[in-house]
Each structure stands twice: as C-alpha cells, then as structure tokens.
C-alpha cells in the first residue's frame, strides 16, 4: 500500500512541477472565447485527447472507508468523435474486513457537435454519447462482496455546455454551466434496476474574466482558477428518492494540465445513509500537447459534421 501511495504522490506532484513554467489558462472544450474545463464527478461536453490519472476519491461510509484510484483515457478518432475508457482500483477498509481490487471497465463513444456561435459569445456546445459498463472486467472478490456491479449497463447520454459571455453584466460573463443526462439501461433490470442519471455544474472562469472581460491585478495563479460546484444525481427505477452528491471545489488550469479538488457532499438524507462527506482530487493531462503523434491528435483528420 505504501508503494501505491508513493506512486500516487509522484503521479500527482511530478508533472505539475515540470509544467509549472507554462503560463495562463486553458483546457479542453473550446467554444469561441470559452474554455470548458474538465469536471471531476461528471463528464465534460466535448471530445479531446486527454487523460485523467489519477482521480482519487476518498469516501467514508457507515461501515468502511472506501477509496478509489481511477484512470481515464480519452482518444479522438475523428475531430468530433472520441473514445474513452475508464476504471480504477478500489480499496475498502472496515473493522471486519479489508477488500481491494479493480473496478469494472467503462467505455464511452462520444460525438461532439461543432460549437454554436450564432451570435457573439453564444458559447453553446453539446455532445451525444453511448456509455457501456462492461460487467465481469473487475475484481471477482469485489463483485462477490457486492462492492462493484455484476450487471452491465448501457447508457445513451446527452452532454451540454453553455457559457454566459453573452450576458450584459460583465462580471457575470465568466459563468458557465455544463450538464449531462443519461438513461442507464441495465442488462438485467430485475437484478439491478435501470436508472436516470443527471448532473450539472456551475462554474466561474477566472481565465475567462482575465482574457475576455477585465484583466485583474491579482496573483497569476488566481487567474488560472475556476471555482465550481457539481451536482450529480441518480434516480433508480426501483423507486425511492434519488441519490447523489454536491461537490464544490476548485480547478486549476495550466497550459497542458489541470488539477482539480472538490469536497463530495451527500445531496440528501437518502445519500447520507450510504456515505459521508468525501473528497476527490484529480490530475488531468491534455494529450494534444503530443500533437505530432497519434497519441495527441485525431486518428482521422475529419469532422463528421462536415465543418
């Protein structure tokens, strides 16, 4: 375990220091002046070449401490079509037993419509995707213990992002919202009911304020930050109240990477029965910095929307 922690510290700490000499903010879904950063508990509204490694999620539950050390790799096939794969290593510590192992693998195919700029600063973008949780790809022990799903699901998903650069009040223009809505079709609804999942984020982009509205005389690291709150909920066909989390936090964007940290707070009493307030931190690398290789650019330089 100590080796795992050492590796995570290295993965978190090393690249930021390497890139610290880069300046100013940027990230991934770009729509005119607007850059939609990568969010932590929900997906962003576009496709790009990027990697989240690691995403560390620390979650206390009534009987155990559950931690996950996640990975995600997103690869563009064309300029608008992307493929993603994500999963993670889970640990669960309780007085009665300790469990650890790999989570199931989830794959995503997503297509991004070209951003709308029908009037100045419209900053509207959306994507559609298909997310597949592949059962049986995780740890048998975790599956047997009920920690991970033993039933797969397929989720058509709609993603959107809207920046408010078209508002008349200058200091409101850095605001943006992103969201996603998905229907999770279970492979075996009798064993694991299907569900609706929905999420939204509200962001205030200091980079947008600095670059497009009013440059502020503040320390430069502050100009790279985006305070935000993410709300992610699930409503099961089995009935009962929805469950989910509210996650306030900060994103820090540099030229080629992003660091994010959020508290993960149960959104309601139904959620609190299963988990307490946790914490999530993510290091995110923008792979299009490898623009000269297959690794950082679309495999096919074509946009399926013809734009």
């Amino acid at each position, binding site marked *: 375990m100590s080796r795992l922690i050492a590796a995570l510290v290295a993965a978190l700490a090393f*690249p930021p220091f390497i890139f610290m000499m880069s300046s*100013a903010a940027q990230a991934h879904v770009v729509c005119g002046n607007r850059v939609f950063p990568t969010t932590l508990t929900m997906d962003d509204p576009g496709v790009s070449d990027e990697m989240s490694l690691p995403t560390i999620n620390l979650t206390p539950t009534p009987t155990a401490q559950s931690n996950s050390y996640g990975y995600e790799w997103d690869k563009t096939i064309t300029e608008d079509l992307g493929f993603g794969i994500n999963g993670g290593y889970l640990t669960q510590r309780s007085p009665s037993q300790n469990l650890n192992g790999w989570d199931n693998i989830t794959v995503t195919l997503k297509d991004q419509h070209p951003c709308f700029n029908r009037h100045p600063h419209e900053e509207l973008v959306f994507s559609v995707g298909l997310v597949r949780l592949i059962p049986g790809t995780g740890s048998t022990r975790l599956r047997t213990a009920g920690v991970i799903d033993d039933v797969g699901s397929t989720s058509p998903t709609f993603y959107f992002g809207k920046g408010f650069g078209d508002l008349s009040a200058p200091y409101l223009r850095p605001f943006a919202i992103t969201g996603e809505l998905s229907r999770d079709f279970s492979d075996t609804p009798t064993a694991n009911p299907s569900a609706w999942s929905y999420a939204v984020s509200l962001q205030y982009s200091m980079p947008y304020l600095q670059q497009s509205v009013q440059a502020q005389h503040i320390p430069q690291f502050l100009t790279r930050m985006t305070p935000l709150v993410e709300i992610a909920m699930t409503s099961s066909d089995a009935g009962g109240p929805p469950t989910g989390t509210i996650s306030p936090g900060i994103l820090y964007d540099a030229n080629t990477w992003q660091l994010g940290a959020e508290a993960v707070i149960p959104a309601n009493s139904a959620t609190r029965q299963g988990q307490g307030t946790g914490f999530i931190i993510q290091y995110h690398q923008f792979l299009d910095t490898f*623009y000269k290789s297959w690794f950082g650019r679309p495999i096919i330089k074509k946009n399926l929307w013809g734009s």
Partner: protein
Amino acid sequence: MTMRVLTSIFVLAALCIAPAAVGAHAFLDHADPAVGSSVPTSPSVLHLWFTQELEPAFSWATVSDRSGATVNDGAATIDPGNKSELDIKLKQLPPGTYTVKWHALSVDTHTTEGDFTFHVGKG
C-alpha cells in the same frame, strides 16, 4: 502483484508524459492595453501576448471602433524576438471603446480565437 502493476502504471504515466509535452493551444495571456482597461490617450501599438508561439501566416488581430470601422494601421505582426507576441499598430484613436478580435494558430496546429474591449479616454 496487483500493487506492483498499479504502481508501475502511475509512475510510468507521470514520467512518460512530462518530458514529452511540447506544445499547446495558444490563448491570450495578457495584453497592453489590458483587457477591459481604460487608457487616457491613444496607444500607438496594441500588444498581445499568447501562451504559445504562433504561426505568423495564420495568426491575426484587428481593432475596430463602435461603428465596426477598422482602426489598426496595417496588419498585425509577430514580434521577431518573441514569437508568442502579436503587435498591431493603431491609428490615432479618439476617445471611445474599441474591440480587439484575434485569431491564433499555434505550433500545435490548433486554432483559437477571442475578443475583448478596451477604452480610450476617461473611463
């Protein structure tokens, strides 16, 4: 064994990614006159500094007044000593609000664009 594999993945990812990163999109870092600022008199040149070096043939900027008339004096040029700096000579600007529109192609072949305003005269 699993721990060893996991450790290797994380460390290799961190070490491999870092030294190979060579470029990124070009975004506006800062400008003079500054974004959203007021300056008392007409500046002779507008300076734009970007986060990456630009491709000169495909990077440009224009300055226009409220009526949409262009007020830059010639095309924008890349500073020979700093390829991430775009300079635009300006005509004599009467008091008013001016809009800067820029379009940048960085060395990673990604295009970016943006705009902002500044004001000449008492603010």
